[in-house]
């Protein structure tokens, strides 16, 4: 059984530090939901408030429609997977997995049976009597997940659980987590500072900065239609060009910039300071508004990144597909780039 | 305190707090306060307790100050305890350094086991061993005579015997803290100093000892306190001429029958030890948390 989670006007102040300010969002039951942001943005604080380890100084947390005020972590239908995993080092794997059942007074034979079932689910059959210290990083990871799933939580909270793994294993575990979530249908709330992780796994993503919620959207929406300059910069690579809006018509804003007049999607009133964001892959070499002195070309495999400097000295990055590499500008040369207005976004400056 | 309740819940937290309060109040604070009270009151027959003569004064402490023999014994105990601590330090430092930096794990294991063996039997038996060794007609005199180093037996019992017995009895309290402190010193630092051309004594003076100062201070504080508060070694290995302050205190309690004066003497001993602890910590710039490890 999975639950929805709703944060309504939630805020947290530690002493004089405001860690989280007036955050509102609702995670639907069965959703894979990520909270993305740089470290210190308040995402872990939010997760710990949902889990009940700390209590918000304002606002409410509702799980499955029920207000959680005054309920401790052991009285909520949530289970958490910690960054350090926090497996109990002195208990064999099966007791780790069955710990939550032990807390609920389930008999030993039943606990063992449940633990074995879950070990099968995470493909670690027969590992029940090992100690956590005898497992590899990926295996420990899976045990931590099984331990949390054993209590059949309505909501699973994951605090950057993959950050300790190496790249290859991390990518593998992403797929595994995603599959597990689909299979169990449990609501996942996943915390990460790694945008590719959030984009690849989630149904929806909430982006946070400095304790403030920036945007809640699907990964694609987030990438294509960032709601704030922070989101535009934080999610994916982008080029930012500052200017002033001179006209806005049919969802296209015309921006007056030191590099000339540029156009992109948006709704900014004329006369307002704004920034145009355009992704590297939206830049097409050969003819266009942006002329740059090329510094270097980094070959990345599937594509190459062209780094250059615009007329006003600001950096420009364009990506060129490997198959088009023959047309890519050479370092030291001058090159101009164009883009379609519908591939650029104009956002008002804060 | 809130953390304690949040972490363990009401029941357990209350149990913990109760245990700690019981310990601190009934076993640490109250006994010492009561001893202080005793030390300040005169020794009176039961009938006069609470009477007009039952008032607090410094008489008992002044008695110690004015009684020449006791005063001399007190100061002798102080400097002799300091001597015990210094001798123990000198004896222990090289071996602690060797164990911590140069010994192989195997040597270390054997050495620690051997060092701990004497400490499995109690202080009384350790002292008794020296009692037998140092006896007038005992083995030490026999060996020295045989080797031609002395012409006739030496009476070791007295200050020399007490010193030897105490150094022996408390050696581990000096050795372990210094060992622990030196052990945490990176070998690379010593190598670096040697590489830069420092002579061994300079390496010790400038690198090892500064690093080990908390351990050295701890060892000295403990050895001094144990020596000053020792009763067995002076009682067994001492002579009438080498009485120890603790023996005087004991006599007030169980022979002189004046607990108040005994309490005053004990109070002076306690004050001395606390003063030594504080001064040593200040001198070595070490704080208490580093000492009790």
């Amino acid at each position, binding site marked *: 059984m999975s639950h929805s989670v709703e944060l309504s006007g939630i805020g947290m102040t530690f002493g004089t530090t405001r860690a989280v300010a007036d955050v509102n969002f609702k995670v639907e039951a069965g959703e894979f939901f990520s909270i993305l942001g740089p470290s210190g943005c308040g995402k872990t604080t939010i997760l710990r408030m949902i889990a009940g*380890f700390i209590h918000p100084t304002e606002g409410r947390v509702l799980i499955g429609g029920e207000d959680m005020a005054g309920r401790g972590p052991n009285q909520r239908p949530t289970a958490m997977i910690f960054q350090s995993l926090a497996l109990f080092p002195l208990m064999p794997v099966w007791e780790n997995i069955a710990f939550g059942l032990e807390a609920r007074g389930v008999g030993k034979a039943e606990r063992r049976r449940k633990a074995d079932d879950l070990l099968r689910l995470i493909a670690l059959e027969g590992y029940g009597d090992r100690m956590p210290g005898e497992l590899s990083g990926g295996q420990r990871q899976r045990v931590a997940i099984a331990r949390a799933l054993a209590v059949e939580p309505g909501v699973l909270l994951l605090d950057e659980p993959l950050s300790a793994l190496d790249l290859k294993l991390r990518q593998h575990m992403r797929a595994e987590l995603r599959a597990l979530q689909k299979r169990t249908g449990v609501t996942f709330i996943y915390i990460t500072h790694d945008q590719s992780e959030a984009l690849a796994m989630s149904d929806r993503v909430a982006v946070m900065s400095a304790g403030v919620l920036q945007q809640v959207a699907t990964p694609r929406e987030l990438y294509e239609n960032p709601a704030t300059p922070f989101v535009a910069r934080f999610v994916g690579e982008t080029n930012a060009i500052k200017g002033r809006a001179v006209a806005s018509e049919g969802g296209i804003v015309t921006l007056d910039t030191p590099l000339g007049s540029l156009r992109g999607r948006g709704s900014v009133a004329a006369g307002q300071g704004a920034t145009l964001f355009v992704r590297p892959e939206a830049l097409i070499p050969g003819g266009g508004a942006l002329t740059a002195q090329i510094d270097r070309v980094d070959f990345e495999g599937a594509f190459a990144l062209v780094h250059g400097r615009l007329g006003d000295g600001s950096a420009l990055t364009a990506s060129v597909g490997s198959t088009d590499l023959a047309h890519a500008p050479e370092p030291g040369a001058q090159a101009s780039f164009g883009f379609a207005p519908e591939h650029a976004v104009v956002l008002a400056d804060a | 305190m809130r953390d304690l309740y949040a972490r363990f819940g009401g029941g357990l937290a209350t149990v913990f707090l109760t*245990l700690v309060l019981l310990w601190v109040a009934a076993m640490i604070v109250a*006994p010492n306060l009561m001893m202080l009270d005793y030390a300040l009151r005169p020794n009176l027959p039961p009938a006069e307790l609470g009477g007009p003569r039952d008032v607090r004064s410094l008489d008992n402490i002044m008695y110690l100050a004015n009684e020449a023999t006791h005063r001399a014994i007190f100061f002798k105990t102080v400097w002799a305890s300091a001597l015990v601590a210094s001798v123990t330090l000198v004896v222990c430092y090289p071996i602690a350094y060797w164990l911590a930096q140069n010994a192989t794990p195997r040597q270390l294991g054997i050495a620690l086991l051997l060092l701990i063996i004497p400490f*499995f039997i109690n*202080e009384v038996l350790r002292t008794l061993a020296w009692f037998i060794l140092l*006896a007038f007609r005992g083995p030490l005199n026999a060996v020295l005579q045989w080797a031609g180093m002395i012409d006739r037996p030496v009476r070791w019992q007295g200050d020399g015997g007490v010193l030897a017995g105490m150094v022996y009895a408390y050696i581990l309290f000096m050795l372990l803290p210094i060992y622990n402190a030196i052990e945490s010193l990176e070998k690379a630092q010593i190598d670096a100093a040697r590489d830069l051309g420092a002579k061994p004594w300079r390496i010790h003076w400038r690198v090892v000892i500064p690093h080990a100062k908390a351990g050295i201070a701890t060892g000295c504080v403990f050895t001094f306190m144990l020596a000053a508060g020792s009763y067995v070694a002076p009682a067994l290995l001492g002579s009438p001429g080498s009485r120890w302050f*603790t023996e005087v205190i004991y006599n007030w309690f169980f022979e002189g029958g004046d607990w108040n004066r005994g309490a005053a003497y004990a109070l002076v001993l306690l004050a001395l030890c606390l003063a030594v602890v504080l001064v040593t910590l200040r001198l070595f710039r070490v704080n208490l948390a580093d000492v009790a490890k």
Partner: protein
Amino acid sequence: MIQRALFIFYLACFAVFMFAPLLVMGAAAFNTSRFPTVIPWQGTTLDWFRAMWADAAMWHALWTSAIIAAAVVVVALPIGTAAALVLTSLHARARSFAYAVMVSPLLTPGVVIGIATLILWRQVGVGGGLALIVVAQVSFISCYVMLMVIARLQRFDRTQEEAALGLGASRGMVFRRVLLPFLRPALIAAGGLAVLQSIENYNTTLFVRGFETPLTVFIATKVRTGLTPAVNALALVMIAAAVIGAIIWEIRRRAR
């Protein structure tokens, strides 16, 4: 080279200093001489072991020490553990003050602890005896327990407690199933140390013993009233027991 020779000479002297007394004491247990010595050697005998074995007073003293040690462990372990947990949950200021108070018994001479305990409890009509010996010993042995538990706690990952709570455990269960098992090695070591400290203690016990005669007091009295090599035999047995115990411990540790 000279340095090395000097150091080996020092090591040899150190070894002689540490073990000559023990060897002499042990050897004297086999000498027929009525007074424990090795000079002159009057003949080899095991009589003193027999005498020790038959000494009812010695057995009684040993029994007394065992009871005291058991009681001290039972009281000091919970107190020391509680103190460690309370200390670690205090804030910095309060903590350093409480810490100073709680380690102060370690820096107090043993005789003073005995005297202060004796004086306090006389006020409420309790004289020297078993109970008072236990109280006096617990007052400082708890410090050792506390320090050992604190040392272990510093390596404890508190998120384990949160993980357990998050899985629905009660605070009591978290303590019993997570924290206590983690502290177990420290508690076992502290218990062992407490037993050794209790049996070894003389200075404190002397003042609060009343009419009880634990082992240390028994031996010290023997020295004055008539020392025989039976005491040496006892010492030898204790050393042997300790060494065997240590070896077994080491073997089991390596086996793991």
